């Protein structure tokens, strides 16, 4: 039986999530024993054409050309996965969405003749998506769990709840309560192992809203901690401002 074929696509992104696949180095050979990385431009000189069993799409969709490539990817992949927060919600590129396109383009490019950017969206704005692997970058462990579960035909265990759960399981000192720091952990999806709070850095919300995120209530507490309303907006729009939950948080105060 041939191994399942995996394709990795890149849209508007920093390539950090793809890099996490390569960073699986110690077990990369084991991974290649389980799947063929058939299309992975970052890592292969020659790439094989589709169809593929699993398509991992990195990056937000920010121009017409990407929409075309995304639709083709959807057609040639049995399962299509949003790899990382850009593909899930628009991610960091979506911070531009609250200014006119021309203003944003002008800041980056000298010659705008060939630039036709669109609002940055996650990939599910254009095509149906089978799974979301959140994070900036994506969690290697979750990515592996997802691949293994898919190969076995079982539902992967992707933590849907808040980062606080993992923070408590690791018995971290609460940055919000004890250190009086602003932390998006209570409304952000876990699965990162509470990576930042475990190292004394508040959660930035890179994994987007947890399954029952109450961003409005958290925004009120952020304001009570003395945060300016514009800063609260920045917190909620940094990675997942396009989600309804975090946009409610951004507009709450």
């Amino acid at each position: 039986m041939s191994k399942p074929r995996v394709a990795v696509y890149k849209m508007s992104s920093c390539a950090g999530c793809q890099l996490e696949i390569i960073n699986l180095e110690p077990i990369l050979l084991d991974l290649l024993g389980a799947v063929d990385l058939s299309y992975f431009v970052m890592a292969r000189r020659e790439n094989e054409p589709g169809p593929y069993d699993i398509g991992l799409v990195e990056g937000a969709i920010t121009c017409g050309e990407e929409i075309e490539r995304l639709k083709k990817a959807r057609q040639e992949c049995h399962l299509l996965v949003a790899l990382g927060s850009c593909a899930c919600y628009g991610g960091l590129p979506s911070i531009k969405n609250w200014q006119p396109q021309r203003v944003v383009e002008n800041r980056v490019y000298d010659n705008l003749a060939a630039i036709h950017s669109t609002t940055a969206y996650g990939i599910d704005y254009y095509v149906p998506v089978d799974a979301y692997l959140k994070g900036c970058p994506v969690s290697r462990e979750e990515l592996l769990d997802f691949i293994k579960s898919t190969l076995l035909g079982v539902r992967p265990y992707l933590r849907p709840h808040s980062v606080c759960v993992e923070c408590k399981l690791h018995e971290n000192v609460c940055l919000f309560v004890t250190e009086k720091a602003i932390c998006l952990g209570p409304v952000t999806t876990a699965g990162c192992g509470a990576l930042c709070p475990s190292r004394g850095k508040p959660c930035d919300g890179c994994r987007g809203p947890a399954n029952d995120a109450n961003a409005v209530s958290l925004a009120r507490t952020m304001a009570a901690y003395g945060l300016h309303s514009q800063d609260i907006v920045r917190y909620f729009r940094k990675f997942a401002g396009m989600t309804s939950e975090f946009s409610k948080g951004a507009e709450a105060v």
Partner: protein
Amino acid sequence: MSVAYARQEEWSIPQLYHLPAAKLDPFLNKLKENYTLIGPVVKGKEFVFAPLSDPGELSLHYQTTLLPPKKVLHLPFEVLFSFHEDQQIIETAQEQQQQIIFGIHPCDVHAIAILDKAYTAEYPDPYYIAKRRNTLLVALNCSEPGENCFCQSLGTGPELKDGYDLLLTDLGNGYLLEVGSPRGRELVQVMDLAPAPRVAMVEKQKVLDNARRKFQKKLNTQDLPGILEENFRQPIWEELMHECLACGSCTMVCPTCFCYNVVDKIDLNLKSGKRQREWDSCMLLEYAQVALGHNFRKDRDARVKQRIYHKLVYYEPQFGTLGCVGCGRCIHTCVKKIDITDVISRLRGE
């Protein structure tokens, strides 16, 4: 099977010793020869229970810890067994080393008594029981209750009456040491300790009376199930639905919460793996979701209510006691400062 603990009354004369402050470290060093010592140590601005590599790390002047000592009996993450395609199951070897939880407060001792009922009675849990059997409790009466403590209202502190192997009370110049079990007596025998003078019991009551005056929170337990059942539909629940972040912290730090989730971690060869469990929480949306996606507690207020009703109403018929021991951890950990004592007094119209 049950973890039987001798009650104080079964001992004709309580055995009292005086442990001078200077002898605490030598005592701990003696105990360390045969036991793993676990006690409160400093972590940042908080305290946690952790194995003591050096008695000097022990901080007995703590008010509360981030996680309850439950974490050494029912681990936050625990590998139950590993398995292989050819149907081999390899059980995780249970640690045989005897351990002592040193300096555990009365509220947490009461919480362990509740866990004993949950994990050893109807559905015996071999993982919990193996650890519990090898665990001795050297308790410490509370002389400095914290700002969120309300054990006094629930009869679970600041004075411990039973459930311990040894009980310490800080009398200033040293500790009064009371023996609560045959295993506790064995512990005392490692040191040459003088019996405590009878007046030490009077001093102990002075310390505890002083502590009793320091409580800032209380929870009136009179007809609690009745009050809660009458108020199942009350505006306060809707208010809490809008407040609560559903982050699950309150249940993660609770010493009497015993729910867990079981997850298989498969190896990349897809032929072997591990089955592990980790703490779960009824405050989380996915907790009450069943096959085909229906969720019995989809609304946040239903989960807020479930937590409070379970602790204050539903434990009683199941375990013969309230499910709250007044340790105050859920209040301390809550970003929104949702306070179970405040919820109850508001329901009472106070």
